[in-house]
C-alpha cells in the first residue's frame, strides 16, 4: 500500500509498453493510455497515484491532465490506495437475481469491511462492480484478471482461506 514516489518501469516492462505504443499510428501514442495505465496500476500496488499518472503522461508525451481525465473516467482504475487483494463483487440484475447480495454480505462479514474499504492488515479490499458479463454463471466475482463464477458462500470461504494463506495479490501485470 506504499506510495512509490518515483515509479519507473524496468526494461522488460518498457519493452512491452513500447510494443503496445507501436500498435498505433505515428503521433497517436495517446491511444496506448489505457493499456499503459493498466500496467502502471499493477506496478504501483494496484492504484494510480498522481506520480504514477505523471509518469505515464511523460511516457506518452501528453499533458498530465489528459491522464487524470482518462484515469478518473474508467472504473477499473483506483485513484486511492487499495489492499493487496481486491475482491470485486458484481451486483447488477442477473447476479442480484441469483443471490449476489448474500455473497457481498458474506464477504463483508468475513472481512469486517464494507465495499470501498480495506482490511486493517492491508490484505483485502472489497468493491462492488457493475455487470461483469458472465451472467449465465451468476453470481460472479472478479479478483485481478480471474473470474470466479457460480459463487456460493462456501466457495467464498474456500477462496478467502486460499488467498489468505498465499498472500494473494490481485494486481499483477495483466498482460503476463
Amino acid at each position, binding site marked *: 500500500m506504499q506510495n512509490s514516489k518515483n515509479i519507473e518501469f524496468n526494461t522488460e516492462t518498457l519493452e512491452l509498453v513500447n510494443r503496445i505504443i507501436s500498435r498505433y499510428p505515428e503521433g497517436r501514442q495517446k491511444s496506448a493510455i489505457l493499456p499503459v495505465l493498466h500496467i502502471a496500476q499493477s506496478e504501483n500496488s494496484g492504484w494510480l497515484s*498522481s506520480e504514477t499518472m505523471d509518469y505515464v503522461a511523460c511516457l506518452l508525451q501528453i*499533458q*498530465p*491532465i*489528459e491522464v*487524470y*481525465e482518462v484515469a*478518473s*473516467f*474508467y*472504473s477499473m482504475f483506483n485513484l486511492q490506495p487499495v489492499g493487496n487483494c481486491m475482491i470485486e463483487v458484481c451486483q447488477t440484475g442477473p447476479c442480484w437475481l441469483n443471490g449476489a447480495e448474500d455473497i457481498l454480505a458474506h464477504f463483508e462479514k468475513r472481512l469486517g469491511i464494507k465495499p470501498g474499504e480495506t482490511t486493517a492488515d492491508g490484505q483485502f479490499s472489497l468493491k462492488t462492480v457493475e455487470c461483469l458479463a458472465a451472467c449465465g454463471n451468476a453470481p460472479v466475482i472478479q479478483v485481478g484478471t480471474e473470474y470466479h463464477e457460480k459463487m456460493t458462500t462456501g466457495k467464498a470461504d474456500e477462496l478467502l482461506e486460499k488467498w489468505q494463506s498465499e498472500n494473494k495479490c490481485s494486481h499483477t501485470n495483466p498482460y503476463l
Partner: protein
Amino acid sequence: MSLVKVTIDQIEVEVEAGTTILNAARIIGGGVVPPAMCYYSKLEGSGGKCRTCLVKVAQGSAKDPRPMPKLVPSCRTLVQDGMVVQNITSPEVMEARKAITEFLLINHPLDCPVCDQAGECHLQDLSYDHGLADTQTVEDRRTFAPIDIGDKIKLHMNRCILCYRCVMVADQLTDQRVHGVLGRGDHCEISTHILKAVDNDFSGNMIDVCPVGALTDKTFRFKSRVWFTKPFDAHRECTKCSGKVVLWKKGDEILRVTGRKNKYGELEEFICNDCRFEHKEPNDWQIEGPRKIERHSVIGQNHYEKL
C-alpha cells in the same frame, strides 16, 4: 457561396450552406432563438451537450421532406435547403426544454443570493423562461467544496453544468491545459486534480465563457451585485490582446474588467489576464462610453445611459 432556405417557426430565412439551425435562428433573432448553455461559436467543437437548444425538424429538406425522428441539437445540426424547423411553436420542444432545465437544476445549489454571477447568469435566464415553480426532488444535492484555481479564479463546482467551455478555452487559447473534466456521470467535476494554478495569459477568459457562476473572478468576489455596477466600453494599448474591454464601475471605482459580450453572451474578443486583472485604475483606460446591455438582463434595469 451557396444559399439555402430554412423556415424556423414559420419565419423564412436564407443562410449560407453549412450554417447550423441555431445560427440561422440567430440571424432571424428574437424569440425564435433557442437558448444555448454549452455552445459557443468561438470555441471549436463546443455544443451538443446541454440539450437546451433541442428543436424539432418537421421537414428535413426540400429533397427529403421526412421529419427527423428525434429532437435535434440546433447548435450542431446543419440546415438543409427547404428545412422546416419548429422551436417555440412546438409543444414537444417546449416540454423537452422545461425538462432539460429541471435536469440542470436538480443538483444546482440555487445559491443565487450569494453568487457573483446572479444577474448575468444564463441558468437564471433559462429557469426564468422554462423552469418549474417548485422542485420535484427531495434528495440532497451533490456537493463539492469551492476551490481556488490560481489566485484569480474561484471554482464553485456545485454550480457547474459541465458545458466544457472552460476546457475548450484552455485547449484552444493556451498552450498548456492543466484543468479538465474528471470523474464520470454525475460525479464529473472540473478540476486540476492536484491543486494547480491555472496560470497563463488568457486563462481569465474561462470566467467569461462560463454560463453560470462556477468560475468567478476572485478580484471581484462579493464586491457588488452586478446590477449595481455600471458597464463602460473602454480600451487600452495592450501587446497581448486588443485591449478592448468592458469596465464595471461603481462610482469611480473599477470593480471588474471583462471582455465585451454580444447579445448571446458570447465574447466578441478574448482578452488577456493583464487587462482583466491588473488594470483597475481609471487612468489605465480610455473610456468610450456606456456599454449597451442588450439582453433582457436585470443589469439593463439601471437605465444609467440617461445619466
